[in-house]
């Protein structure tokens, strides 16, 4: 059996990891609610964010925070362009085509990142070092703590954005009924692209914050699939549900790896499949079937 202190430690790292998944899932959910497109390349936005911060701080010698800001904004611009130039053209195509298109984007981003930044894992210097200790049991590295804090900040900011700003309310309207929103004079196309930019920006932030904890290479985009699994466990419909599911996945993962080494690395998918078998529409259904 695990000693109790290890249990606590695993749980805390799990929560931090889950928050990172949650930040990525936030982008998934935003884009899904706006356009009903699930962006399988979202993990790649995160990877690009990590690389952008790395490149800015290495090449220009900027500190962590300026490169964090500029890096995330530039990935947001990439997200905007992806929607405005490409995703917009294939609205109404079959879902299979759209899924495959976003997966293909993942390939392109990964290949380009590998070509530009190299295929080897790189490490990023953390903005804070050391750890926070509360009593004997609880201790957490500052860089992990930062992820948790950032998640809280982002969630609060997004809530305020959607509740209080004109822009956010317009986005909610467009996601509920595009046609009606259009008739009300809301620039739906631009808002959808802005949603993509926002989603990409948050994913890039997750990548940049995760970069000091794990190393950066082209495969970290695969975390995006785990974030998707977490979002499904919690329910794709709401930001909080998705976040909760991601934290759940993040906490389960280290324990599953410890107790069931046979499914190391894939426990997130097992949990998700179990949930889907019981509740095929996710824990909180988003679709309503018409009765015949």
């Amino acid at each position, binding site marked *: 059996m695990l000693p109790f202190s290890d249990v606590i430690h695993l749980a805390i790292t799990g929560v931090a990891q889950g928050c990172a998944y949650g930040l990525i899932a936030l982008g998934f959910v935003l884009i899904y609610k706006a356009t009903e497109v699930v962006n399988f390349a979202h993990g790649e936005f995160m990877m690009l964010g990590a690389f952008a911060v790395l490149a800015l701080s290495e090449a220009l010698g900027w500190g962590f925070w300026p490169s964090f800001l500029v890096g995330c904004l530039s990935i947001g611009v990439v997200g905007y362009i992806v929607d405005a130039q490409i995703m917009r053209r294939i*609205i109404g195509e079959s879902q*299979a085509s759209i899924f*495959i298109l976003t997966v293909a984007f993942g*390939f392109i981003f990964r*290949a380009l990142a590998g*070509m530009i930044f190299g295929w080897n894992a790189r490490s990023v210097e953390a903005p804070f070092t050391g750890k926070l200790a509360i009593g004997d049991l609880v201790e957490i590295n500052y860089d992990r703590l930062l992820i948790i804090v950032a998640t809280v900040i982002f969630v609060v900011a997004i809530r305020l954005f959607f509740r209080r700003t004109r822009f956010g309310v317009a986005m909610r309207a467009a996601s509920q009924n595009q046609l009606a929103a259009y008739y009300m004079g809301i620039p739906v196309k631009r808002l959808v692209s802005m949603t993509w930019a926002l989603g990409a920006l948050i994913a890039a932030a997750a990548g940049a914050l995760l970069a000091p904890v794990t190393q950066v290479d082209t495969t970290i985009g695969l975390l995006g699939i785990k974030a998707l*699994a977490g979002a499904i466990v919690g329910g794709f419909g709401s930001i909080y549900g998705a976040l909760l599911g991601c934290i759940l996945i993040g906490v389960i993962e280290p324990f599953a790896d410890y107790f069931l080494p046979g499914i190391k690395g894939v426990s997130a998918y097992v949990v*998700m499949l179990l949930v889907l078998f019981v509740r095929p529409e996710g824990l909180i259904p988003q*679709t309503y079937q018409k009765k015949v």
Partner: protein
Amino acid sequence: MQFLFKTAYNDDIRFLAKTGEKVRVAIVVLFLLAAPLFLQDYYLAELGLLLVYAIAGVGLMLLTGHTGQVSFGHAGFLGIGAYAHSVLLAHGLPFIVSIFASAALAGLVGMALGRSASKMHGFYLAIATLAFGILIETLFGEWSSVTGGHMGLAVPSLQVFGMSLTEVWQQYYVDLFFALIVIAGAANLFRSPTGRSFVAVRDSELSARCLGVNVEWVKIQAFGISAAITGLAGALLAHHLTYLAPDVFGVLESLKLLLMIVVGGLGTILGAILGAIVISLLPVGISFLKGVLPAGIGQTAGLEPLLFGLIIVLVIIFEPAGLYGRWMKIRFFFETFPYYRKSSFVRQKTYLKTDRMR
């Protein structure tokens, strides 16, 4: 311009309606039958592999193209077929029994997945099948007492009715035999109520249900048939690989299968075959590009996935109907020769189809 005059009820369900089609299919079949006479062993083996991928493509096409259920985990069925076939052969079962047993096993697993998938839709289904593919790959790696784990598993040599088929042309004919059966079978399926109900479910679940189609059962059937055909392809693929490793049947392979049917053209059997041709020619094209491009770009490691992604993106944006759509346009151009106008195929404006209210 050729007009189709229907003079009998059977005209509606004929495999090949026009004389031109009959001639073209006959030429292709004759070419395939005669290929060992004039092709070298290397090209013959490649052609055999192409046929195996065409079988797998038809399998996935039935599910994704015709029934509208996306599967990101079809390499799992390919793997189940390949591993089951090798293990059964190693236990001394004859080839014919083993290949059908492994196809049936893949089909049963497919039906089990389809049972739960029949309630999901859209991206839930895509993610569930993706997770299924990842888990199957992990299973192949971890269950080492049966599959040999990451060490791999040697595939027993090909023996049919006690005859040892070791020559390339003999193996080619085995592939060709199954490919022709599967393609004819799939074409036949879409003349039957079962196949038509597949298409009905793809186009509108609501309308299909109104017309008395049992949507859940149709999805289970589609998963089962598709998985069985893919499993059959996997069993044949095992003989081409001669050595099985879990990572061969990973997510990348599933995506390759999807690439195949998307590039070929969703919803057509011909599309699966065209896609298989593209997949087989892709490595040749990439190695050609590597020679042409300047060394700095040509030698980087990411060129292959980059092209892979670019091809999918360009095809989906500019020719959503795939190569099959292009072929239709070319054919239409010649059939209506002086009257072809660009506006014949202008795409309609499309709108967001909501999935939240089915």
